[in-house]
């Protein structure tokens, strides 16, 4: 589904990603871990197409297409979803309106019919229940005045509504208490499907107690320094990142 080859990226002239190789197949869940400043968020944003990141080398193939060639919204239409570390507030923009406009924009781009108001409301209520999002929040402005946990749940709701092929979760666990973390993890687990791939970017391994990855990658200094199965998470918990960095440097 996603094949990243020797991806190099700079921000304001400084090279952050120094050659990333990663292959993600449909149905898989990949976790990307690493210390602060290792390039995890940069990887997530480059894949989503955010401005300010210069790709200086390599290529990315998504569902058989050159991903880097596409505009931000085209990537979204193709089925790429990025759950943000800091969901943005949109004052005055009704959450339901935003969800409906997004969903219909994606559907239009895929040549599907727009969803009517009744069908949409049914769907959104059901999905909100699934991610345990208070229905009151649907009527408020997007993320405006939401608590940290509410914002993250709102991200999961958007993901559940848009049903992406590839979802990237950028530090979705940051700033969450254990209950919120569990809810978010449940939402993510619900999204697991043989047609869908997930990339979970996280600093802490605690999220991986709830979301069990098929593959785990350690990112350090702009490179993937180690890849392994879920057992790697426990090793990281016990030994930290230090041994990997040393091993890599050696």
């Amino acid at each position: 589904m996603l094949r990243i080859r020797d991806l190099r990226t700079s921000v304001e002239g400084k090279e952050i990603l120094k050659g990333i190789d990663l292959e993600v197949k449909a149905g898989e869940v990949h976790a990307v871990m690493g210390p602060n400043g290792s390039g995890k968020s940069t990887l997530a944003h480059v894949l989503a197409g955010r401005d300010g990141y210069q790709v200086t080398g390599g290529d990315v193939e998504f569902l058989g297409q050159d991903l880097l060639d596409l505009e931000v919204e085209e990537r979204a239409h193709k089925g790429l979803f990025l759950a943000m570390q800091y969901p943005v507030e949109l004052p005055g923009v009704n959450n339901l309106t935003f969800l409906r406009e997004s969903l219909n924009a994606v559907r239009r781009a895929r040549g599907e019919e727009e969803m009517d108001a009744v069908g949409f409301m049914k769907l959104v209520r059901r999905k909100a229940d699934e991610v345990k999002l208070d229905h009151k929040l649907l009527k408020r402005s997007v993320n405006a005045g939401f608590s940290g946990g509410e914002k993250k749940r709102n991200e999961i709701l958007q993901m559940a509504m848009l049903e992406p092929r590839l979802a990237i979760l950028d530090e979705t666990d940051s700033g969450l208490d254990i209950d919120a973390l569990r809810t978010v993890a449940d939402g993510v687990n619900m999204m697991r499907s043989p047609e869908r791939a997930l990339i979970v970017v996280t600093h802490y391994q605690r999220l991986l107690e709830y979301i069990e990855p098929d593959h785990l990658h350690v990112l350090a200094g702009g490179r993937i320094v180690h890849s392994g199965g879920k057992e790697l998470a426990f090793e990281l918990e016990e030994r930290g990142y230090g041994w990997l960095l040393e091993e890599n440097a050696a």
Partner: protein
Amino acid sequence: MSVPEQQMDELVRSEYKQGFITPIESDTLPPGLDEGVIRAISEKKGEPEWMLEKRLVAYRHWLTMPEPQWSSLHHPPIDFQSISYFSSPRPKDGPKNLDEVDPELLETYEKLGIPIDEQKALAGVAVDAVFDSVSVATTFRKPLAEAGVLFCSMSEAIREYPDLVRQYLGKVVPHKDNYFAALNSAVFSDGTFVYIPRGVRCPMELSTYFRINEAKTGQFERTLIVAEAGSHVSYLEGCTAPMRDENQLHAAVVELVALEDARIKYSTVQNWYPGDAQGRGGIYNFVTKRGDCRGDRSHISWTQVETGSAITWKYPSCILRGKDSVGEFYSVAVTKGRQQADTGTKMIHIGENTRSTIVSKGISAMQGSNAYRGLVRMTTGAENARNHTQCDSLLIGDRCSAHTYPYIEVKNPTATVEHEATTSKVGEDQLFYCRQRGLSEEDAVSMIINGFCKEVFKELPMEFAVEAQKLLAVSLEGAVG
């Protein structure tokens, strides 16, 4: 005097003899302003002597006044002698119904999307269309007449209802009020007159579309709305204008009078030509709008969406004289390119327990400059009067500017004044967020802007609100990125 009076009179008469011609030719006075021009305007309109006198008094006073310099607007000096002060479509006698209206005129309205037709009837809106300076079509007079509502052109009102006009015209905005009001009082060409009798709720929304069509013709509209005790009226005003090379002056005066328990809602969508990218050719819009809440518990509400004009100078105001009277001002002003807006309101609290609400939303994009200027005055008699002001600015890009000039004067210790102001930017992060969810950049901007303006749009009548949203999306197209 540039043209001898007699010669002017002859000119006027000979013009009229040519009668009805298509394509529409305008009956336009040559550029320039002096007493002869004012007499000619008054004569063309068949006005009584007292009206001419009022005009001349205003003109003589205008000559003594300096042009105001206090706003934050910048423009080259206006040459008042290079402007023509009268232009009217040809037909000599006003049409009695739509069949008598020049089809070419109707076609122009069609193009502008102004529906003077059965659809409008179904929508329940009466339209008094002002093409250049003279009212050419008025619909729905009958149901209004049955309710006792007078809705006609100002010229007609001066002829048909002179007592009412004399009683109220110039009483809210006297000719000495300001430079542009004085000019308007001297040369106003036409406008709208509305009178709602005691206890009557106007059976439909009243609507006037203005359009400036003739090059180099200043537009000097005069509007007067009188709501007798216990009456209600909602009035809509919308404007468009075609492409133009020279700056055009527009100096309208609107006066509202609300007696006991009366309620007037005045909504404006203004979309005049803003000029090209260098700021050439846009309309200069110097407007004086004021409402007099004369009666106890009267209520005047101004709602405006200002997206057009090169220069907007406009402060729709309320004089809260009656006890428990209420004044409201809801405004969205958009400036982009080289547009400049200096707009806001004045709330003058005189009576006890008077209340006012101000919600101002300024949007600046590209090199647009947007200023909110508002006065809240609590006079000594304004016991327990209250004001709440919310003043928000939204910036798009980094070359635009937003300014807020609140003036607050409180002379009564029991009065309460609240002022809140925010400035925000349409952020790159917001646009990225929306686009990542599949929205195009333009839809994202339009969604953010409409969210920002929501509090004002909800005050507009339904069909206007939809129009205003579209207008905003269109006018900010390409302003981002």
